[in-house]
Structure formats: C-alpha cells, structure tokens
C-alpha cells in the first residue's frame, strides 16, 4: 500500500473525494447536489487522465494503475448514459463503484511511467483496452443490479425491475466485451502471429465471455422461472472479469504473453 503525494496522486484522491461527497449528499436525499459533485468528480477524473496522457506520452492503459484510472473515468458517462437512455439508475451505487475502482490506483499500483514495449505500439492498443474498460463498467453495474435482485427477491415488482436492469446492462456491455475479445484476437494475429495463442489471459477473457453467453441462453430458456440463477450468472461473470484483470496479471501462476500489463 502506497500513498501518492505527487500531482497524479492528488488528482486520483480528489476524484475519489468528490465521488464520496456525492454519495454522502445522495444518501442525505440531496440528490441534485450529489449529482453535481459526481460531475465534478468526473471533471477531476478527466484532468487526471489527461495529465497521465501528457506524462507518459501514450494512451494511458498500459499497466494496472492506468487501467483503474481509466475505469474511474468511464463511470460517470456510463452512469449518465444508463440513466438517460436505458432508464437504469445507478446513483449511489455508481459513485461507490467509482471509489472502488479508483482505490487500487490510489493505494496499490505503482504510477511510475513506463515506455511501451514494441508489441503495444499499435493502433489496436487504444480501442482494444478502451472497449474492455467500458464493458467492465457496464458489467460491474449489472453485478450491482443482480445483487439487488437477489436481495429483494421476495418483492416481485422490485425483483423484476432489478432483473431487467441487470439484463439491460449486460445487453449494453456484452457487445463491447465481444469487441475487446475480437480486437485482441486480430491484434494478436498481427503482433504475435496467431489470433489465438491459448495464453492464460486470453483463456480467462474467453471464460468471462462464455459466462455471459451462458447467462443469455439460460435467461432466454429458463430465466423467467429461475430469475435468481440469472443474477447468480451475472455475478459469476463479474468474478471472472476480476480474475482476468487482476489474478492473471498479479499471480505468478499464469505466465504468458500478457505479463507486461
């Protein structure tokens, strides 16, 4: 655990602070003020991301610090999009999610700038990682909705609403998850010679994707009768994403081509 006392660190903690303050106001039923603070947090996240971009001189999604920094940036636009366009409200849960994803960037991962190895110097780099970041945020929102569905399963009306909200979030995030997988595969062919190298990171990404494929098939066939299982599968998908993002990169068990991340 490390405290970052440089400008980058202050911007990360600042974003977290605005999100927490926004949460506090929302919990005090001052939702407008909470929403405004959430927006200020997003503006701080933009400055933080922009500063990182300037500092490292490449798309800042190379290491885990930058990945979590980007996730913190993606929360607000996805929250607003989900609320306005999909009618799935995030509110306090989204602000909490912002704090959760920025916590590792602020306290765990090194912000030491690193140069891009040759394999990452490609136009695929930015879109491949960016679509994954956006899909992860949608899937994280789906997980919150699924958890609420399980918590309120006795209340039929709320349970149904949460179940549908989970489904909508997965419908929004799954195409992005697929795009990330396909872009990665295409890039792998150009950089390493094969579109599928059976690398641990590739396999864990496939596992995450397959769990959501399973969710969509199960929901279509048996979902109305066993809606709790839909939610469990949605949560399981997020567990696989977390393993893909963290365990595969941090553990020495899974040595492979993606170990630079």
């Amino acid at each position, binding site marked *: 655990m490390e405290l970052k006392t440089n400008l980058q660190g202050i911007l990360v903690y600042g974003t977290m602070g605005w999100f927490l303050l926004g949460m506090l106001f929302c919990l005090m039923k001052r939702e407008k003020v909470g929403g405004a603070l959430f927006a200020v947090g997003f503006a701080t996240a933009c400055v933080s991301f922009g500063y990182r971009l300037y500092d490292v001189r490449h798309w800042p999604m190379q290491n885990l610090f930058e990945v979590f920094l980007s996730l913190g940036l993606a929360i607000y636009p996805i929250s607003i999009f*989900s609320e306005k366009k999909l009618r799935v409200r995030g509110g306090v849960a989204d602000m909490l999610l912002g704090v959760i994803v920025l916590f590792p960037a602020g306290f765990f991962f090194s912000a030491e700038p690193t140069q891009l190895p040759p394999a990452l110097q490609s136009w695929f780099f930015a879109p491949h990682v960016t679509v994954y970041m956006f899909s992860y945020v949608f899937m994280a929102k789906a997980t919150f909705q699924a958890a609420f569905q399980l918590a309120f399963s006795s209340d039929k009306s709320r349970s149904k609403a949460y179940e549908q909200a989970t489904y909508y979030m997965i419908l929004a995030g*799954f195409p992005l998850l697929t795009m990330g997988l396909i872009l990665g595969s295409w890039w792998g062919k150009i950089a390493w010679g094969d579109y599928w190298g059976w690398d641990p990171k590739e396999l864990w990404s496939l596992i995450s994707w397959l769990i959501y*494929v399973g969710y969509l098939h199960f929901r279509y066939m048996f979902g109305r009768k066993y809606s709790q299982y839909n939610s469990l599968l949605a949560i399981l998908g997020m567990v696989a994403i977390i393993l893909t993002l963290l365990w595969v990169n941090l553990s020495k068990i899974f040595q492979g081509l993606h170990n630079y991340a």
Partner: protein
Amino acid sequence: MAKFRRSIMWGALVLITLLILFSIYGAFIGADRAQLFFNTLPLTAYWITFILLLGVGIGLFRRLLRFPGLLLIHLGCIFILIGAMWGSEGGHQLQKKLLGTDKIQTGNLVIYEGMSEERVLRKGVNVNFGKKDGTVVLYEGDGPPYSFLKDGDERIFLLPFKIKLKDFRMDYYSSPRLLVKTMDGRELVLKSINVGEKHDLGNHTWIKILKVYKNFKVREIDGKYEAYDQDEFGSNPAVRILIRHADGTEEEQFAFANFSGHMEKTSSLFVQYRDGGMVRDYFSDVQVIDDGKVVLKKTIQVNDPLYYGGYHFYQSSYDTQRGYYTVLSMTSDSGLYLVYSGYLLLLSGIVWQMWLTSLFRRRNMEITKEGGRLGA
C-alpha cells in the same frame, strides 16, 4: 418438438459449461500445453459436436431465423470454429490428404544479414545454427563431432521461395550517450557520439570521439597491446576518446557500456558510456526472391508482418550478441479469412441484436416504464 428444442438448449448450456471448465484447466497448464490439449482427439470431437449443435440450433429455433442478428451470431460462431480447425495442425494434415497442398502451420527461419533462406524449422524443433564456409549450417550437439541437418530432413520445411535479409537493426527509446563528471563537480550529457566529433566541456577543455566499438577486444601484436573491434560473437560496446585539458595536455581514455564504473587512473574526468536503454522496435529489411527475381521488398517489424505465398512472417527474435541475424516466425493463412469472416458476422450480429433490436427499441423502453425507473 418443444422437448427436443429444450434438450438442444440444455446441450448448448452443457457445451458452454464444458468449454469454461476446459479453459480454466488450460489457463493453469500454460499456453503451449493448452494448445496441445485443445487439439487432442477428444477435444476435436468436442469442437465438431459444437459446430453440429450450432447448425441444428439454427434449423430448430425459428427465432434464430426471424431475427437476422441472432442468425449472424450463430453463423459467425460456426465460421470461427471451422476456420480455426482448418488452420490447425490437424487441418493442415487434412489439407495435404484432401487437396495435396504442401503447407505447414507454423515454423521459424533464421536469416543472416546479406543471405537468403528458404529453410523453415518446424514448430518445436530446437537445433543450433551458425556460419560455416560462407553458408549457414543447422546442426545438433554441444561439441564436436556435430551432426549437421541435411536437405530433406523432416524437421526442415522448404519454402518455394527465398527470403533475403538486407539489414537487421533496432531502435532505442534513447540514443547512446556519454556522461561526463568533471573534477569541479559539473555533470554533462553528450548525446551525439560520432567519430571525429569534438565536445566543448567549458574551461578550455574538450573531448574528441576517436573510435566507437561494438565489441571491444584487446590483442597482442609484436609485444604491444592493441584495442580492436572483433567481428564475431560478443558484445562489448565502448568508445575511445581524446581529452584535452585546460593546460594543453592531452590524454586518451576508454569508456565501456558494460563496465560503467571503469575509470583510468590518469584521468581527471569520469566518463561513462551508456547504451540506448529500452528497445523501441526491431526492424528486418527483407526481400522476397521467387524464381530468382526480387518480387517484394519490406521492412518487417513488430505489428507489421510480411505476407507472401500464403504465409505471414513475423519479427520473432534476433542475434542478441551482434545483431547479425534475425529470427522470423512463419504462420500459414489457412482458415484465417474464414475466422475473420466469423468475427465480422458474430460482432455485427451481436450489435444488431443487442443494441439495435433489443436495447434501443421502443418496446423495451415501455416495459421499463411500467416498472418505473429501474435499479438502485
């Protein structure tokens, strides 16, 4: 019929679950063993079952035909699986039997600068190589007598064309530089190191670059020791500099990249030679020679392979000692465009079905309105 459809759907869920379990196992055993595992006979049977189930599903579920997005998704999966099987090691053997095509799935070429190569070492073949009498030889054994691989050895695949390496080079994030510390505590960085160049250090002192060595060695000639650049394996970058002091005296000094603490006793300056740091990229300038003619010229680099004759050639490795040769990995394009077509079908189907048909359709929004605002 409904029961049969139900059992097909259960079958799909079982196959998806099995693939998840296989993938978890594959992630733990490492990429090489996982590739072998997913190409074993039982897994081949699994992939064929998957393709058949997808086909049966398209025939049985009218919904898949009614919604073009869903149809594209399932067709895309079939394309990807067939393309991947066609491009696998077994797929290449099948192509040889059925169509008589003589292609290999993957292999490596070692090409020395200025030389042409057509011999591809098949996947997993690990032999030594080196130059002998102006030609490149492949051999086995740690010491003499060596066993040389001959043309026709089954571990070697011969391409119907040759690839000539004109030049191999690397680009670094920073260029080599000299760090100079003077007796009065000043620190200077000299970023330009060209033979004959003079650098003014101030206080009427300057440094002149006399020679740059890639592989510094010392030899004895007629009882005298002489520094020279050895044109063989090894890497010992160094520079020879002339220092002119304020009082008009001159002295020569060596600085070594591999021995940054080196300092000659007579020197009043501490000079360090630093190489370029992290590699930015690797470049192999190659020519494709077909029927004795140069048909293609290309600089292969990471993320920019060469494509010729149904194969892609990638920058894979290089001579770490002197940069005299490059190692290119080669992959067949069999089944590749079927896989890419599958990707296109799958992605367009998913976007069509999930975003355009389901998510942003008014009907769904109305369902949402019934329940009020959703979520926490």
